[in-house]
């Protein structure tokens, strides 16, 4: 999937990847790639602004540590972030179900009445 198509869904995807625990940016990107069977094709650097924006919104919190002599920033969901993930997941499910019904041709009743 191209980056442009992914753009509107990155917040939800990043929140979902962080649901099972704290991760640094590299691990978030790696997890996105693995979970999508390498379908998501976007510049890796574009994930960091998303992480920063989510943190500024209070959905994530971050912490610094030193690993192999380098400073590493790790992100985790806040309580507010978990709520937002649940809400956005629900919206996504409703949206995809509706799209699925449309694409599945749920019956044009006007033709039979």
């Amino acid at each position, binding site marked *: 999937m191209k980056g442009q198509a992914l753009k509107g869904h990155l917040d939800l995807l990043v929140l979902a990847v962080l649901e099972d625990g704290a991760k*640094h*940016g*590299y691990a978030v*990107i790696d997890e996105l790639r693995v979970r999508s069977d390498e379908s998501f094709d976007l*510049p*890796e*650097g*574009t994930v*960091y*602004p*998303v992480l*920063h*924006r989510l943190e*500024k919104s209070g959905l994530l919190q971050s912490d610094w540590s030193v*690993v192999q002599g*380098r*400073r*590493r*920033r790790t992100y985790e969901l806040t309580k507010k972030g978990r709520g937002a993930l649940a809400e956005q997941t629900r919206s996504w499910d409703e949206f995809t179900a509706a799209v699925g019904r449309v694409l599945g041709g749920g019956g044009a009743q006007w033709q039979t009445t």
Partner: protein
Amino acid sequence: MADHLTIDDYLHAMRTHLRNRHDRVELLDEVEDHLRSTAERHVASGRSPVAAESETIGSFGDPLVIADALADANGAAAVPTHFTRSIGRVAMIGSLAWVALPVAFWSSHVLEQRGRDWEGTPQVLFMGGTASLAAGASITLLLMLALRQRHGGFRVAATVGVGVCGLAVAASMVAWAIPLWTAILAIGCGLVAAEVLRRGSAPTGWAVTLAAAWPAGLATLVLLRSMQFGEVDEWGDYPAAYLTGMTVGCALMTASLIGLGHWLGNEQPVDGPHVGSAMAG
């Protein structure tokens, strides 16, 4: 991205592009950790170091585009600008308005006490004090705006504080209502000073003085009023108590304007291209 670029080249390009940001080190540290971790992984999987770095850079994205996206996500840069320097210098000079105000009000009060007709010199002095209050409040508002810009924006509460300081300019129309505009300034300056202290860039002493100026003035006013300080006037009030409280606030406000103005006025602006090129790298 050209294939021969290294991670160091990439980071240098980002560093130059983000040179005006106070959070540049954090942003670059995070990017560097990602790039080096990715390159190490590629090398571990059998690629040459040169190929690993090239592939890493290629998959991360254009450094300037990523740098801009990071800057956008993290808000405005908290840096000195020509605006903050200019306002700092104006504040130092403009602090004299907070000196002129009590001088004018006290002079007016003393002359009236000595039996001078109010519609003569006392009234002129009072009008001069009113003008000084309007000037002092305006300069204070400008300083708050400069502090906001210097910190790359404020949280909501401090931004409200800047707006409250704007109300003080309007309140100068009722300069005689000293407790009113003193309270307005106490709230406005207090909210801004709390944010400035939280951010930790400005000199702590002057930020504390800014926070304390008007609460101290108000406290003095209330205390002296309760002690029935000075002579009672025709309305049954104690003008000397009000004027003394106001003078305390004005004195501390003058000091904080000079201190914070000196800080802002002596920082080198980084918002001009000529300065930026000098700082590059």
